[in-house]
Structure formats: C-alpha cells, structure tokens
C-alpha cells in the first residue's frame, strides 16, 4: 500500500515486517521490567516479567495450561463454527428476502446490543455449565459480524455481472457459487477475522460465569488466590489463541482471494461456459 502524503520514514520489507512486532514486544517487556523494578505499583499488582515467565514454565510443565487452553479452544472453535455458519446463512437469506429482512433485522440488532454477559448466566441455566453454554455464548458474539458482513457482501455483488449471468442463463446454484459467494467472500472473510477474535471473548465470558475448566476459569481461580502472575499467563495465552485464529483466517483469506489478483475468476466469467 502506498502512502503518498505520509511522513513515515519506515521502509517496509519482509524482514522488517517480521521484526517490527518483535521489537514492540521487546519494548513492552522492557517498559514492564522498568515499571516493576521502580515499583511504580506493588509487585503483587504488577509482578516482574520473570515471575510471569516462572509461572508460565510451572503451569506448562504440570500440563494445566495446555489442559485449560484446549478446553477454551474447543468452546471457541465450536462457537466460531456455529456462529459463523448461522450468521452467513441468515445473512444470505435476509439479503434474498425482503420479508425476512423486515422481520429479523430488528431482533438481530437488538440481540447484538444486549451485552453478552447478561445472557451468559441464562445460558448456563438453559444449557448447563458444560461446553454447550460456552459455545453458544461464543456463537452469539460471533454471529453479528458474520451476519452483517454477509449482507453487505451480497449487496456489493456488481449488478452488471448478475445481468451477465442472467443473459447466460446461469442456474441459481451457479449464480451463488460462481458469482455471489466469490464476490461476497472478501467481506465474509473480513467478518470472520473479527469473529475469530470475538469468539475467544465469548467463550471466556461463559467460563467466567460458570466453569470447571478453561482459561476463563483459570483467571477466576488465579484471582481468587491472588496469583497475579498466573492471571497474566492465562491472559497472554488467550491473546495468543486469538492471534493464531486471526492468522489462520488471514491465511485462508490470502488463499481464497488469490484469484482477485490473478484475474482467474474474471477470465472464467468471460469464457461464457455456463450451462442451463
């Protein structure tokens, strides 16, 4: 991306792109260490990085970090899959049907504007304190960005291409798979990227309300024992999970949207090979 009016002297290269976040992490660690050494806050409020590292090693070796991370990851993936599929499907149907749009949109917006923490205790009563309630909490938070991006993506499908397919007598399925999904994919994947990080929040909110395991539970447990290093280890683990999921969706995006840069899809459309 070029920035003609920018005063940025930073010269981007593949190496600098990788080094920049590492440099930032190093700067944050240094600042953290300085704050800790100067005791700006007592060590029980901001423990030194070494104490957090020590705790990380301890909970990694005894397997508890992996155990709690996997429990949360399971809820996150279930919520992400459920919320994304429901959001995309309903988004598509709403875009296709004015009646559904009029009927559903006010409720979807109302649902989105209700804090998920308000739903979480009810979900525990309705679905128990196991994986289901966490996955649904996560799915609820994932649903909205996917839904909105699907609707917007579908609306961005160029009318000229729709006309073109109509002229070529493309079937409904062909229109969906060859035009609508590829055209909506950038928006859809944009929504999925946001959803991937939100899914983690949803699962952890569920675990905060009621859980026996998971990183949200680990944070609650560590807080109850005033173990601030363990709280930080769990928080960092959550951030890492969210970053990995974001990275996976970004990678998926690069692969699925490669055609945008190669022009493959356009040439495919120009061939006019649609059959009735």
């Amino acid at each position, binding site marked *: 991306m070029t920035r003609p009016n920018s005063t940025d002297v930073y010269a981007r290269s593949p190496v600098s792109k990788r080094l920049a976040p590492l440099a930032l992490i190093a700067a944050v660690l240094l600042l953290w260490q300085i704050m800790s050494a100067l005791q700006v806050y007592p060590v029980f409020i901001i423990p030194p990085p070494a104490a957090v590292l020590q705790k990380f090693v301890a909970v990694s070796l005894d397997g508890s970090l992996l155990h709690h991370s996997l429990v949360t990851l399971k809820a996150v993936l279930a919520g992400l899959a459920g919320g994304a599929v429901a959001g995309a499907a309903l988004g598509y149907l709403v875009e296709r049907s004015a009646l559904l749009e009029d009927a559903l949109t006010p409720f979807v917006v109302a649902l989105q504007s209700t804090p998920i923490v308000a739903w979480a*205790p009810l979900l525990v009563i309705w679905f128990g304190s196991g994986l289901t309630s966490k996955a649904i909490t996560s799915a609820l938070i994932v649903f909205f960005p996917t839904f909105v991006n699907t609707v917007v993506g579908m609306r961005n499908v160029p009318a000229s291409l729709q006309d073109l397919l109509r002229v070529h007598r493309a079937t409904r399925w062909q229109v969906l798979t060859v035009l609508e999904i590829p055209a909506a994919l950038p928006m859809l994947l944009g929504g999925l990227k946001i959803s991937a990080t939100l899914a983690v929040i949803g699962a952890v909110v569920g675990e905060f309300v009621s*859980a026996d395991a998971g990183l949200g539970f680990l944070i609650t447990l560590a807080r*109850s024992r005033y173990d601030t290093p363990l709280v930080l280890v769990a928080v960092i683990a959550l951030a890492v999970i969210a970053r990995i999921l974001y990275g996976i969706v970004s990678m998926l995006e690069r692969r699925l949207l490669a055609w945008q840069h190669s022009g493959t899809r356009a040439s495919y459309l120009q061939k006019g090979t649609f059959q009735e």
Partner: protein
Amino acid sequence: MRRVLFLLLLLLTAGNASAQGPVTTELFLPFIPNVQFAPVYVAIENGYFAEEGLDVRIRHGAEHDGVDLVAANQLQLGIFGGEQVLLARSQGRPVLSVYEWFQQFPAGVVATIGTDYESPREFSDLAGKKVGIHGRSGVTWTAFVALMNAAGMTEQDFELETVGFNVPELVCLGLIDAAVVYLNNEPLQIDNRISARDCGDLRGYRVFPVTPVVDLVSNVIVTNETTLEASPELVKAFVKAFDRGLQAAIANPAAAMLASSPYVEGLLAPGDAEVLASLASLASLAQLAMDEADRGTMLRVEGEVDEEDLEAQLEELRATLGRGLSTSAKLQSSVLLSTIPLWVAEVLGYSDRVSWVTTAAALQAAGMLDNAPDVDLAFTNRFVPGCAAGDACP
C-alpha cells in the same frame, strides 16, 4: 498595623477551620448494594460516621479487586471474607482484619430431601450426589471444603457442578441434589418458591451450616499495614462508628431496613416505608418505661447469646414484619433477620485466634494456600470497642 495582622490571623484561622471538615474515606463493599450491609447504611444515616469526623462513601465491586485496592493503599478500608485476608497475605498483600463483623460463617450446604423424607441426615449422606457449587473460590467454596475435610471426604465423593448463582432455579428444577449456598439468601429464595408452588416436586430441604462443624473466620473489616501505622485514628473512628451501626441494626431491624432503602434499589415498595416507620416507633412507644437508651429496641441481645431466645425473638419479628410489607420487602426483611444471628456475639467484632488458625488449616488442606501466612499478623482486636471498654477480650 496590629489590627491588620489580627484580621489576617482571623482570616487564616477561619480558613483553616473550614478546611478541617470531615475526612472523606471510601469503603469497599463486595457484591452489590444489599440489605445485608445494613450496619454500614445505619452508621451513615444515623450520623455515627459523621460524629467520628468521617464522610464515608461506598464503592462496590469484585471482592478480589477490592482486596488489591486496599492492599495497594488506594483504598484504606473494605469489608471482605476473613479467608481472603489469609489468601491475600500468603501472596504478599499487607492487609489485616480489624473487626470481625460476622461471627458465624454465612455459608453451608442445602440438600433436597428425598422421597423417604429421611435422607440426607448428615453431610456425608451426600456422597455420590450432584452438588452445585458457585465456583472453586470464595466464601462458599471455602465452606464446602471445610465440610468435606471435616467429614473425611474428597471432591471425588461428589458429582460437582459449577452452577454460579442459579441454585434456587436448579434445585427447584431437580437438576441438582444439593448446593453450597449463602445461609441467609438462597434457602429463603427456595422457601419463597415453595410457598408460591413454583419449586417443582421439592418436598423440603435440609441445611448443613459450616459453623457448628468448623469455626471459620467470616466477613471482617480490613485495612492495610500502611494505614494502620500512619492513620490508626481513622481505623479507630471507622470501627467505632461501624460498631454502633451494627448494634443499632441488630436492635431495630425495622429502622435498619428504612436506613438501607436509599442505598438498596427496589428494597421497599410504596407503603413499606410507612409500615416500617410505625413498627420502628411502636417499639419505642412500647418501651417508654425503659431506660432512654433501650427505646426503639425490637431485638434484645445482651451478654452471652442465648440462641433459643434469639431465634424465638426473630420468629416473632418475622411475623410482625411480614404482616404489612410487600412481598419483596418481606423477603428482604427475612434476609436481614436471617443474617442477624450470624452477627451477634458476646463482644461484637472480636476475633478469636483459634478461628484464624482453623481457617488457615482449612485453606491449606484445600490446596488454596501455597505459603502459610502468620495468622497473628492477619488480625488485631485493638480497635474493637467491646475489647477497649472492658476485659472481655483475652
């Protein structure tokens, strides 16, 4: 010239006098505004804090956050579970108890009665049952662990399910056989549901409180070591006023309900305030013959606590308060009346060292304490008015 100097001196003195207003201090209370905090509300509304030169503001929040705020001296005073003091001290937080407000541990286990109307008779009868817990931390978990240890049982003896604060619903739906509860709250909610025939097939329940089995430290007033050293007069003034508020709340629960109503949203419905005011003043009228200090006393607790007498008085009060109040105010007055027995003691606020040692042992047995703290540094009785006045405290 002298006159000018005199005027300047007068002005400076006047400015200084106006600056010496009440000392504003923030008190951290866990949970949300609730009638259980009535002694604090009474001490504010009756002007006990003001008489000690304090302007007390209340801040609510999560208990652990509050402990950290007090430990970091961002706040000077808070009310927390005694076990929190030990847990916090074991992780290097310089906090300590200066007044043991609750003399009995407020948690226990409520167990639904089976079809035979017999079981469970004892806590150990819950082996193999599905038991709901709020979570693996806090007051209720400490209570459950203490009961388990006393019965020689482990977590594996139960089917534990974390249910948050949904116990009444789940008990009535029959989804759990027992649950760890706050004794002054959830059993009353279950009672209400049973009365309203909104509790499924539940025939009744049995309560297993912790205190008769293990004497654990309960809710205490907490400060930090810096405040104790730098401003002991602040702690002394606060504790003295709180003690008066506690005595007043115990003596006249109707007046305590009235004092709580500005703080607890929805506590009273229209008409409740008039009922409570007349009850509170009736107590005064009925006792005109008594000493002036005794007027307005609905509940009399003096010296060694006679539990049977106290329960009989509370039962009478429950009936009296229940007569003209709305349903919600009736429930809240029941909560208050069920809480009062947890407060009363021969010397209000006194901490027994044995209960601190027992609590530390229970926490260690549960694996919640990595480093055993020195219990003697975790509490002091030097500010307890009852101890300062007489020789009742060891």
